[in-house]
């Protein structure tokens, strides 16, 4: 029998005794018809390995110890993976107990993805807040915050280990999830958290083509080539924040309408284009228009729209914000936007020289 930790190369005849750490079932269609296969992670006291099983007893569950004979190990996606196929043998070992040493690949925030859902990351914790939720009738606490390294920021939630503002940590076994086009991490008592030492990360500057996943705390530059027709003043339902320019909210007809100011625009930097949007505060700072406690007539509403266009079109900007990636494409919600000046040019020059590793 081979130990997982000793599997370093591709082989055609591997035999292991392992615990099933994670398992998922997937349907596929081939010339011979429909079928199901399984994939997930197996491990023993020396490490873990991803696996794909074309054949497996349907009773196998997470936590089961199994002996796998005559399996092959091949590289998939740059990483070794164990394959269970028709010539392999699977023996359930219900009496066995096994500890699994979890191993996780190191990730930078900018490389996090859902294909590798348990990872090791190193970064700075900020903006910690606490809230409670109820599970099985018991009040439990969740600690939320932001997790930042030198490539970006994602939200982190802890259902176990303590998180404090300013902590620099290395976390093994953080889970990667996605919510509304944005990536986030979650950790629990099974995750290992340790202090780490590294320089406090600066906000990274990306070329637009490099913005390909939902992370925040990043900057891009670009020239504004288009401003959305509906940028400007708008009425929103105070309950659900939906636009209610024509009449009142269908779901909340009695709710008050509040005046909002926002802008959408397209930035290009020669590598790609990105849709940006700014909310009330940022648009207000950018244009010098404040809406709070004011009323506007139709002429003024139109002049706000053309004011935004004049301010943005054809001008170069540095935008900091949060990217989200959905079927509609990549967009950036701006937390700040400044027109590029001599000082920002210096920074951009340095960042372009370095690139993002």
């Amino acid at each position, binding site marked *: 029998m081979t130990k997982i930790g000793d599997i370093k190369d591709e082989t055609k005849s591997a035999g292991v005794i392992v615990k099933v750490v994670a398992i998922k079932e997937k349907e596929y269609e081939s010339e011979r018809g429909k079928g199901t296969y399984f994939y997930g992670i197996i491990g023993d006291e020396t490490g873990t390995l991803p696996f794909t099983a074309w054949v497996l007893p349907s009773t196998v569950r997470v936590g089961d110890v199994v002996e796998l004979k005559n399996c092959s190990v091949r590289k998939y996606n740059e990483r070794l993976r164990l394959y269970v196929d028709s010539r392999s043998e699977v023996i359930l070992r219900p009496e066995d107990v096994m500890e699994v040493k979890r191993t996780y690949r190191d990730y930078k925030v900018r490389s996090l993805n859902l294909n590798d859902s348990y990872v090791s990351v190193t970064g700075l914790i900020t903006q910690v807040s606490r809230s409670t939720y109820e599970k099985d009738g018991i009040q439990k606490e969740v600690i939320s915050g932001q997790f930042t390294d030198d490539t970006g920021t994602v939200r982190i939630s802890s259902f176990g280990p303590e998180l404090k503002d300013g902590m620099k940590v290395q976390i093994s076994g953080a889970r990667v999830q996605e919510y509304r086009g944005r990536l986030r991490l979650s950790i629990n008592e099974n995750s290992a958290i340790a202090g780490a030492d590294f320089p406090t990360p600066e906000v990274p500057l990306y*070329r637009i*083509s*490099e913005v390909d996943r939902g992370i925040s705390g990043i900057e891009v*530059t670009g*020239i504004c*080539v*288009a401003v959305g*027709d509906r940028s400007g003043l708008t009425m929103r339902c105070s309950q659900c924040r939906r636009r209610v320019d024509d009449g009142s909210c269908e779901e909340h007809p009695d709710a008050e309408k509040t005046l909002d100011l926002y802008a959408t625009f397209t930035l*290009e*930097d*020669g*590598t*790609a*284009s990105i849709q940006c949007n700014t909310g009330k505060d940022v648009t207000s700072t950018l244009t010098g228009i404040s809406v709070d406690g004011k009323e506007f007539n139709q002429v003024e509403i139109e002049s706000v729209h053309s004011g935004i266009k004049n301010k943005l*079109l*054809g*001008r*170069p900007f540095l935008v900091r914000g949060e990217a989200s990636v959905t079927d509609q*494409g990549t967009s950036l919600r701006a937390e700040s936007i400044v*027109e*590029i*000046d*001599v000082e920002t*040019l*210096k*920074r*951009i*020059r*340095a960042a*372009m*020289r*370095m*690139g993002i*590793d």
Partner: protein
Amino acid sequence: MIPGERRRREPSRWIFSRELKESTFLEESQDERIRPYIITPLGTRVKRVLFNGNITSMNVEEDATKAVISDPVGSFYVNVFNRDFSSAQKIVLDTHAVGDLVTVVGRVSSFRTDQGTLYFNVLPEYIFPTDENARSYWTLMAQSSAERKLVAIREAGKMEKPDALSLMKLGYTEDEAECALRSIKHYPGFDLNALREAIVGSGSSLQVSQSLTNAKGLILELIKGSSDPKGCKYDDIVSAMEKEGLDRGAVDEALNLLGTEGDIYEVSLKRFKAI
């Protein structure tokens, strides 16, 4: 936005006029109604461009306005006709005069003479008034993009069978890797040196301060003294210069100038050698 234009249009390429002018290859589409892509010597696949520069000549007539707009290394030829969607842009262009700094976004059209020479015109979709900061920003981005492509082409040239994945592993984006492969495929044996010198030198109008002159001296000494056969690492230069009280910005400016003046060259991404 121009009526009828798709919501997701193709992003513009930021290239110098010189790169466009030296292009000799067109990638024709199966569909004859679709304008071909222009493949430049750096492998850039061009349909739309964004550039800025000074208007150096203008010819306004009833049915068309023709303007020459100069970037640091040459000129773009801009034609705008008094018809359909473009009449609005003609009105905008006609308000400008020779000497004005403008940013232009437009489609590139090409035509081949009987002798086979390709010429290019830009049909503007937008024309915006521009200032020095916007010009410096565009120049910086266009320069950095061209420089990265030049180094990627050199790296690809070293490979027995260059492929996009191997180039991406070296730190190039997918687009840069594909540009390098297109350059090798469509411009075999093309001498990129003149283009490189023109583009790398395009930022040299910056004023050189005394401290920058000092920084240049120190950095050149450091690069000359480096025993690394792969070239002196950028990060090592930055940390050595930090001890001399120079920040990263100063180091970058000095490196740019040294490159422009031909004292050093970038062997590969972020590695330098003295000439």
